């Protein structure tokens, strides 16, 4: 191999060189080569630095618990698969099934309205008490302040919990087949997309089902109404009566009343009547209206501007060392990302980390060079 005519990229593509750079193999040969060919120092060092940088790239790891539960899921799947194989239903027949079930649901709904069965007003406490889950697995966020509290869920979804509001989920059940959360008060959701595990928000009498989108639910215990408004994507909304048919909740097909962006639905809690309207901008929660108007496309923008924009849009507080980050600039496209993902991606770009302290997002960084 004539290494004397090699450039950086040639070294990178040479197996023997890579072995030296990664594992120190053949050290003597390469040291001698460098002494004999000082003009190659640049190319060699460049290639070596790049390999070292790639070799020590940051790692995304799965916690020991997640590894264990994933292993259990593998075992479960294997057990399921060893059961007698059932033929998948052919497409045409499946369409009939869907048609049949729509008819059934429609019929059932008609029957329900005729009987005017009413649920005594359902609240957060009743919802929690009514689940079969073990209560000690309940994870709760209670925001008794008047400021927004950002909450991160285990699936990567973000919630902005408004004042006097409360959010709960069961950590042993969340994300197994569905992602179910319970709220009282008002919250803005940005749901991480996962069609196999529908995200369900239980708010008083209303259930909102999504596959990945962002929207607001408002359901204070003493309000006469429950409101859902959609920012992006699609959600479907049911009353608890309709939702008794559990299969609807776990399916991936959205049914119920479907809301698209800028639509808003109100449930009258006395009559359990749903009415759909288009959102008029001023009616939206101030923070979310702001957010809706903004794009998060940044082209070589100082990171302090980006933080400011996020603070305004989401109504959260971000704490960071302004002097240290004064020179950091970022190019990124974050419009579609949930709040926490925005923060995470920015931190990745900065080589920084973040944590939540007292409802504030605190950025730890060594600054930019």
């Amino acid at each position: 191999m004539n290494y004397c005519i090699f450039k950086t990229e040639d070294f990178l593509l040479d197996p023997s060189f890579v072995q030296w750079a990664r594992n120190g193999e053949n050290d003597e040969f390469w040291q001698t080569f460098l002494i004999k060919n000082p003009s190659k120092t640049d190319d060699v060092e460049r290639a070596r630095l790049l390999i070292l940088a790639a070799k020590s790239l940051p790692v995304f790891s799965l916690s020991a618990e997640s590894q264990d539960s994933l292993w259990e899921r593998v075992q479960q799947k294997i057990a399921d698969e060893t059961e007698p194989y059932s033929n998948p239903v052919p497409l045409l027949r499946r369409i009939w099934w869907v048609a049949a079930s729509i008819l059934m649901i429609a019929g059932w709904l008609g029957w329900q309205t005729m009987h005017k069965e009413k649920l005594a007003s359902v609240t957060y406490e009743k919802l929690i008490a009514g689940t079969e889950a073990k209560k000690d697995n309940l994870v709760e966020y209670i925001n008794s302040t008047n400021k927004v509290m950002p909450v991160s869920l285990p699936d990567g979804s973000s919630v902005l919990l408004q004042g006097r509001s409360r959010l709960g989920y069961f950590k042993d059940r969340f994300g197994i087949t569905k992602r179910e959360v319970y709220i009282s008060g008002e919250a803005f959701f940005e749901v991480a997309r996962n069609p196999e595990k529908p995200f369900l928000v239980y708010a008083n009498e209303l259930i909102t089902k999504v596959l990945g989108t962002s929207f607001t639910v408002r359901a204070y215990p003493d309000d006469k109404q429950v409101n859902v408004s959609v920012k992006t994507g699609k959600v479907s909304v049911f009353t608890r009566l309709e939702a008794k048919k559990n299969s609807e909740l776990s399916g991936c097909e959205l049914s119920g009343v479907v809301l698209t962006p800028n639509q808003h639905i109100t449930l009258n809690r006395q009559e359990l009547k749903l009415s759909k309207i288009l959102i008029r901008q001023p009616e939206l929660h101030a923070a979310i209206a702001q957010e809706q108007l903004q794009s998060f496309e940044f082209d070589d923008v100082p990171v302090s501007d980006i933080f400011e924009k996020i603070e305004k849009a989401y109504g959260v507080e971000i704490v960071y060392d302004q002097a240290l980050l004064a020179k950091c600039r970022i190019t990124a496209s974050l419009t579609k990302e949930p709040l926490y993902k925005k923060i995470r991606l920015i931190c990745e770009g900065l080589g920084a980390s973040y944590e939540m302290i007292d409802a504030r997002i605190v950025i730890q960084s060594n600054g930019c060079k």
Partner: protein
Amino acid sequence: MGDLKKDLENEEYVLWLRFKSGDSNAFSQIYSRYVGILYNYGYHILPDTFLVQDAIQDLFADLWRTRQNLSDTSSIKYYLFRSLRRKIHRLTEDEQLFDSFPEADQIASIPCTPSDETLQIESETMDEQIHTLQRALLSLPPRQAEAIRLRFYDGFELHEVANIMQMNEQSVRNLIQRSIRKLRLSFNLLMILYLIYNFF
């Protein structure tokens, strides 16, 4: 070194044979040995922890189900990486999650802005330089970043990288060469500093 590698391959080979014959201990050993690096790789192609975990679940369940039909291999890691990548792509194909990713190499890479302040770093240590480079690496177009990661981080040979990424070896070489050109600007500045730091 060579012997060590041989031993390792031998050990893997034996582990694989035990697994293929239905030894569930060997299976769980393979899982715990590779789940971490598989997740890391998967998460870099598709930053969605649920989907990646689903793909890994499928991968291992399939592995067990089809174990008798699998060919012999002395690189379990290579086999698993290749399968995981396919799974992730299949999982995401119908959902078009990849829509949000810029078509590989079509976009200009994000400049890593080594502006004036870069010159202040005479005292910068090598660690910090590597850090700067890593940031540049993370901003490469996805396929370039993936090729670099598989070759230099995971230590696959070029032909293995090609096979995992389902392209020919020459295309992988091109990807790596192109990424160097993209990184050149930040490189050049780093090099000057590196030399100053080392020789003065």
